[in-house]
């Protein structure tokens, strides 16, 4: 059953490589989903805020990793 174990760990590894990075993405998506509608931002702004936050997470995580 080692192949089953390998597939399970591969399945988890599909989404999580660096735990902090995955948690930051999930946290931002949840925050954007719950918080942005309450702010009443006009038109395309909520989508833009979601997107810019994700870009920030990506850049911060890669630069932080390169310092190690």
């Amino acid at each position, binding site marked *: 059953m080692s192949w089953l174990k390998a597939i399970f760990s591969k399945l988890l590894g599909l989404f999580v490589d660096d735990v902090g990075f995955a948690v930051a993405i999930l946290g931002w998506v949840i925050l954007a989903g719950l918080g942005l509608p309450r702010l009443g931002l006009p038109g395309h702004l*909520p989508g833009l805020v979601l997107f810019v936050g994700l870009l920030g997470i990506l850049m911060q995580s890669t630069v932080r990793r390169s310092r190690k």
Partner: protein
Amino acid sequence: MLNIDWGHAGPTMLAGFLASLVEFIEALTVVLAVGATRGWKGALGGTALAMLLLLAIVLALGPALVRIPLDVVQLGVGTLLLLFGMRWLRKAILRSAGVIALHDEAKLYREEVAELSRFARATQGWDTVAVATSFKITMVEGIEVVFIIVAMGAAGGGLLLPAAIGATAALVLVIGLGLALHKPVSMIPENALKFAVGVLLSAFGTFWIGEGLGMEWPGEDWSLLILAAGFLAAASVAVSMCRQQKETMR
């Protein structure tokens, strides 16, 4: 019948093709090592068995996900695609900047051949080591392809067919390369492929999360291109920043 949105079909097919190409190349390396050291009967038998199981998963999951309300699927699958795409993109950035080592198919092939040569070969019938090794690698790499195809097919609202066509084209290409070369496909720039797939899947994931949350995107479907361009620009800047960071650490 599948209701195909052809405005999304092209990018979906491309993402399915590129992502599957990366995974099939990785699987091919191990299957070739199995074939060369243990014989082709077991190598191809294990691969065929895994392919049938993967096809059954696609046929079971794809239509089942289409029955769930689209906004729920878009939010759930979009989040998974975003996690998946941004993980690939992060890794591709770090590899491009030289922070982590590039994936080396030739080295992987040599290691696999050395490992497989340690076991005695069966004199008759099926070689269980060959079947199990080929089955495992095809399942492990194929499950990523299945996820991408099913996720893109479901979240795009009936895009299973274009995503599957992209994956099938990649499979045909890799089988063709394997038959022609009889050695690992190391001339394809794997990190550049991963970079492109990471950009595309991150853009799709962000777009579908926004759709699932009821957000408006400027230009609607065309905003996918803007999102992809944004991820590409940010990733390129991140590569430069990581390189600089690495230089200053020396």
